[in-house]
């Protein structure tokens, strides 16, 4: 019966690949095999701290140069895939063209990664990296919050949407380099209801990790407000090419 309904729905409104818009067959996931194969998932070895994958495909996980020199407030940060190719394209469609139907696909991937990186999770709360209200009004949704909702639904860990807030608008991070990012985001966040996070283990979620400046600043604030530990999960990791 379910097959019948499904094929009828397919018959009426067939689904298309999120990325290249070719039509999909019944039962295929939301992204076509061709596009799926161009997504590079993050595999070891990567930095034990910030999760940046190393170019060499062999060797053990170890700390990266950045994490040795810069102070990281989060315990570990992990990402699901490389911020490039189809993943980058789908992410952009999702974020800038409001194709919010990709969210569940991302949720699925986040869930997989989440349980891979934290086989025995002990988080009390998931918190999204916030958007400035002005940006939120422009866009109509907070992409990090959408991911958080998906993940929370799948892992049954509660989430908080308004504890961490953005006070000062900063230019899109993608346009800046590392140094400027650290400076730029400093002091741009704000915490409300600090008691709600006291002694909590928190998973901070965002869509893209570039230099870690944003999540680092958020982690700093959260720790200062009394959180016990901050881990970070992002959908994509932008690996800077040298």
């Amino acid at each position: 019966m379910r097959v019948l309904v499904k094929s009828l729905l397919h018959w009426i409104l067939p689904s298309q690949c999120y990325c290249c818009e070719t039509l999909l067959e019944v039962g295929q996931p939301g992204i076509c095999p061709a596009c799926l194969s161009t997504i590079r998932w993050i595999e070891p070895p990567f930095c034990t701290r910030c999760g940046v994958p190393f170019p060499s495909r062999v060797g053990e996980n170890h700390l990266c140069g950045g994490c040795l020199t810069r102070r990281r407030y989060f315990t570990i940060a992990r990402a699901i895939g490389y911020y490039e190719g189809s993943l980058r394209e789908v992410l952009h469609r999702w974020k800038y063209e409001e194709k919010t139907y990709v969210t569940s696909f991302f949720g699925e991937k986040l869930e997989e990664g989440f349980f891979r990186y934290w086989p025995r999770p002990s988080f009390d709360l998931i918190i999204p990296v916030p958007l400035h209200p002005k940006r939120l009004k422009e866009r109509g949704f907070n992409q990090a919050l959408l991911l958080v909702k998906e993940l929370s639904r799948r892992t049954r860990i509660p989430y908080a949407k308004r504890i961490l807030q953005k006070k000062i608008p900063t230019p899109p991070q993608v346009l800046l380099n590392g140094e400027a990012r650290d400076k730029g985001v400093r002091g741009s966040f704000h915490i409300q209801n600090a008691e709600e996070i006291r002694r909590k283990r928190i998973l901070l979620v965002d869509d893209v990790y570039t230099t870690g400046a944003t999540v680092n600043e958020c982690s700093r604030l959260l720790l200062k407000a009394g959180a016990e530990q901050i881990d970070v999960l992002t959908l994509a990791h932008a690996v800077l090419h040298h």
Partner: protein
Amino acid sequence: MRRGPKDGRPSLLDQTKSPVRIQRFRLPLIPVLIAYGIGLFGGQFNLRFTLQSLPFLLALLSLWFLAILLKKIRWASFLLLSFFFFLGFFSIQNYLYPNLPPSHLSRFIGSEGIVLEGTIDRSPQRTRTGTQLLIHGHKIISSDHSIPVEGRLLLFLKEPDPPLRIGDRVRFLCRLHRPQGFHNPGVFSYKRHLAFERIYTIGFLPVERGWVKVGEGFKNPILLKIESWRDHIRNFLEKEATPPSSSLFQALALGEQGTIPEEIRESFIATGIAHLLAISGDHLGIVAFLSFTLSLWVMKRSEYLLLSIPVKKWAAGLTLPCLLLYTFIAGGGMSVIRATIMVLTLFVAIVFDRARHLLYTLGLAAFIILLFSPPSLFDVSFQLSFIAVLSILYLVPRLSRNLKKHEGMDIPQPISRRERIGNYIRLSFLITVVAILGTAPFVALHFNRISLIGFFTNLLAIPWVGFLIMPISLMASLFSFFFPPLASLLITVNQFFLTLLLKVIGLFASLPFASIYLPTPTPLEMILFYLFLFLGVHLRKGKKIQYLFVGVCVIWMADLAYWHYQDAFRKDLQVTFIDVGHGDSILIEFPKGKTMLIDGGGLPDNRFDIGKHVIAPFLWKKKIRRIDTLVLTHPDPDHFNGLNFIASHFRIGQFWDNGGRIESESYFELEKTLQRRKIPRLSLHEGFPPQSVNGGEIVILNPPILNSGFRTQFTPSFQNNQSLVMKLRFHQVSLLLTGDIEKEAEVRMIQKGDSLRAQVLKVPHHGSLSSSSPLFLEAVQPEYAVASTGKGNLWPLPHPEVVDRYERLGTRLLRTDLHGAITVITDGQQIEIIPFRRH
């Protein structure tokens, strides 16, 4: 979208793209839609199928199910496609060639009036001349008993605003008619138009208050409520706004365009914005857009809402009730419902995240509409909205991609306000152009008229009406229920906006070449045009497309050349007696492309322009745009009322008449047109030398030389006897064209010793007993006689006695009321007669 390889990893991409399996019918709905559409199209031809349609369809369906069970996919698809083909075919056949039961109203069509009782099936529609009621028949009452009947009757009342509602039970005395159309090749058929609404019977109530309300049938409370809202809004608009504006507000809010003055409608048509007058996809689209943006804007004010709910979907959800409310207030007519289905489908697709392929969604909407109402396929408004949306969805993204240099998905850069306005204007211009181009072939097909200025006026008028006048009218209508002062204020402001628009539109409409009239395009031309557009946007795709594009252009040129020179090579002579109901209109096509039109039909009260709606479309269909000689045999309304439109919209070489003039407004209008267009005018009489036209010879036999001028003081019979009588000779073949002459003129010509013998005779005076005297027929000895008569006429013509006279002579009598248009083709030796309808 960027699929190209990046970062030097091309091989990976290319390898993975190719092995994607091509499944049969990846878009399963499209072939089904096409099969169904072909079936619907084929259904209009009367093939007199005696197949039992229902068992046949059920059999196909069960075979399909069997094939699915047996996993014979190929068979299953074939069976499914044929199922939908026959479904379409039979449903149209069922409308056009129905098997009506013996108790159907149409079985009581006859010369005698009957007393009928029935309920009103839809809210009374106002027209310029009165009111139209759709009556669902219950019983026919005679003195001692009543007969139950079924079927629907379209009843025309004289009073403009009868106190009747949907669901009322009325009784009236009325003569039933079959819907009459004019049976000419390629011309709109009123009969078919009504048959698609399952109306096979019409009636007129000649006197006011010719009906009695005998009770109330079942009334749907919801419909009744909506009806009362509509009444309220109508009264409000009529009270608060002055006539020309109020009629337009009513059109926009209630979908009632019956009271829009003809001049305003004409100026809207000339400037290509007539689509704004009829509630259709664009209106519903605008309502959807406005309520969506408004609710989105309101919800975006709250940060809490933004974080808690997907505001976009909620806004879309809130839009649905607004859309439905508007649909009902707008009268829920078929075209409104169709537009709602289309807008709803697109909207639902967005809400349920299935909007990845809007073109496909459009196909789905079309499919739903056609399943729901098969005749929509033949409906102008359906065709135009569908094609407009199709071309916008298909062409605009491709064109704007071609216009933009780079493509790709990068982070949107912040853009300045000026840039944004520039983009907006560019996009609206593109959409306007594409929609006009896309619909052009169908506009030409149905209206023979394209507005050149429409490219510009639409850009102006659509936002003006869509975002100003229409929303304000709707708001005012809404506020008229709770807060009338604000509503009146809104209407006053709105009236100002509308007056401004009407002024500007009137100005544009008066420009020369604001709109041009086009001959009807052939199917080949329409296909070529669409190929031209399709290939045009894909020109960059490579050499093959470019060659094809050039090929299409060449064929198109050849086609234009063919139609241009086709007449020049004509060797035979064609005479067509056009079906104009009661009245005359005869087209003569001489060899090498000279044309003559004798008389232009016309109804006595001129409430329906025969010239515009019957003769001109017929000429355009034949691709005739020039009439070398326009002839008026004598100034009677049933001969000249249709000529004014022809004289003003075709190129006319010269005008001939019999020198008679009458005092009548529409006659003066014709004279004015002739003067304005500086058409040389000749008054003919028997003394006029024979005229030779490309091998044909015209001899004038009547009237005798007389002083011309007003002849109102003379009897009608005198007027008729003054008719221009022409004998047309082409080698061995002669035709005698007699106008409305009576016995007196007939005898006069015989006595004068004119050679009257002709193979084809136009029966004088539509077959009246006053004419076709035996002596005259003896002198002419026609093989064929053609009578131009109307059906369901006040005067049942031709007179039986006259028919007898022709029969006795062994002449074959053809009648436009039975045979439709009658074409006589001769090469100078042989005569071929082609009636449009086989009687």
